[in-house]
């Protein structure tokens, strides 16, 4: 697997920007008692456009950056976001992802998946967290807010990575028509020997 410099730079900057924007701005804004979380949405958008491997890579990188930036236990967010990125990527590889409103459902599912996965990891690490009604409400609000932000965020991610994404992923897929690129989806992430 080879990642072209341009693709890596764009995806890296996008992930870094999302993490910094999240921890510097979005996390400090409360809307209707909840906070949006851009990171799983951006990871999901990258995964939907780039495939499961690109999604897993973006998820791992975003999680690692988040844990480093916030002083959280290293690896927790990476593990959860890797799963989110891989799962959304596989979904994009197996289903028609051209429907205009699909990002809303994907963003909501990615956020729910991240929250549940990170909660499970937190429990397994036994760091004294507890599930309260407040936590559940925050999770629900994050899912709703992320769903509301999904369309503009997906559009932004698509715009940023458009030059390095295979053309077939940006257009409606016709029955029987296969993708021109490999499962990775990013031109820079070609599968060797193919």
């Amino acid at each position: 697997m080879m990642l072209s410099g341009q693709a890596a730079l764009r995806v890296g900057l996008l992930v870094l920007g999302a993490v910094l924007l999240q921890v510097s701005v979005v996390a400090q804004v409360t809307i209707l008692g909840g906070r949006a979380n851009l990171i799983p949405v951006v990871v999901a958008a990258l995964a939907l456009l780039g495939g499961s491997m690109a999604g897993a890579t973006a998820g791992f990188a975003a999680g690692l950056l988040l844990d480093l930036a916030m002083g959280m236990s290293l690896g927790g967010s990476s593990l959860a976001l890797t799963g989110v990125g891989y799962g959304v990527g596989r979904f994009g590889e197996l289903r028609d992802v051209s429907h205009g409103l699909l990002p809303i459902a994907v963003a909501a599912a990615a956020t729910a998946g991240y929250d549940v996965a990170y909660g499970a990891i937190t429990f397994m690490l036994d760091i004294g967290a507890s599930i309260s009604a407040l936590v559940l409400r925050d999770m629900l609000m994050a899912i709703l807010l992320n769903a509301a932000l999904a369309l503009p965020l997906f559009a932004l991610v698509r715009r940023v990575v458009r030059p390095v994404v295979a053309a077939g992923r940006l257009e409606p897929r016709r029955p029987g028509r296969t993708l021109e690129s490999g499962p990775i989806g990013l031109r820079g992430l070609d599968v060797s020997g193919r």
Partner: protein
Amino acid sequence: MYDRKTIRRRRAVLAGFVVASVALITVWFGEPVTGTLHVLQRGAQEVLSPIQSGASRALKPLRDTIGWTGDTLSAKGENDRLRGELGRLRRELAATQTARRDVEQLSGFAEIARADGFPQGTAPVTARVIARSPTVWWSSVQLNKGSSDGLEVDQPVITGDGLAGKVTAVTGGTATVTLITDERSSVSAQVMPAGADGIVRPKVGDPNDLLLDFVEKGGRIKSGQTVVTSGFTASPGLESLFPRGVPVGRVKKVDRSELDIYQTVHIDPFAELKRMDFVQVLTAARPGARAEVPSQ
């Protein structure tokens, strides 16, 4: 769609990231705070913190705008919630205040019954005021007790503070009380301790002022003295409807005119006739005495 190699590679990438994440967790929790990962994390924070700080400062207007919008929406919801809470608290306050007033009024009955001179041998029936006359004179009220509770016409009615009126009509479950402020009311009373007798009449239109008429000039009456029912018996079969000793009011002022034979005493009634919620009907008042005062 994909060959085996691609599938294996994809799974390998996933496994690699998962293993890397688990390894990071394991090492991070296992090492001391001076360990490699912790040092790396602190270094990353030092590198990222200026960027975060700059981004936070640069994007503050955006954050404030979003925050303002969110706060406005939250404030609207909060406003609705607080309005609901205010309504609930108002209802609770009203219920509490009503209960407190009820307790005060009911405890007043116990106090007045213990007062010196209060007529003994009566069997008070406590009743709730369920309707009031809509006129400005507050001349009559309706009670939720009637003949089935032992109430009869002409029985005296008191509040916890003093005399209120008398029963003028009864049904099985209700009774109408004509108050002492009604223009048709008159009550034989005397000023204590002077003992000057007179007839209490209302000053129509001013329920806070009763007049004790027909008081002979010889009696030495001062402001602040108490007026109670006299409960006189003039002759067999002619006696007051009101038993002796029920408080009526306090002397406010005395009008002494040289030309008049009698002096007029202004009384501030004890009973708060506008605000009474409970009254007691003295059902053991002597039956058959319908001779005169108060007139009907």
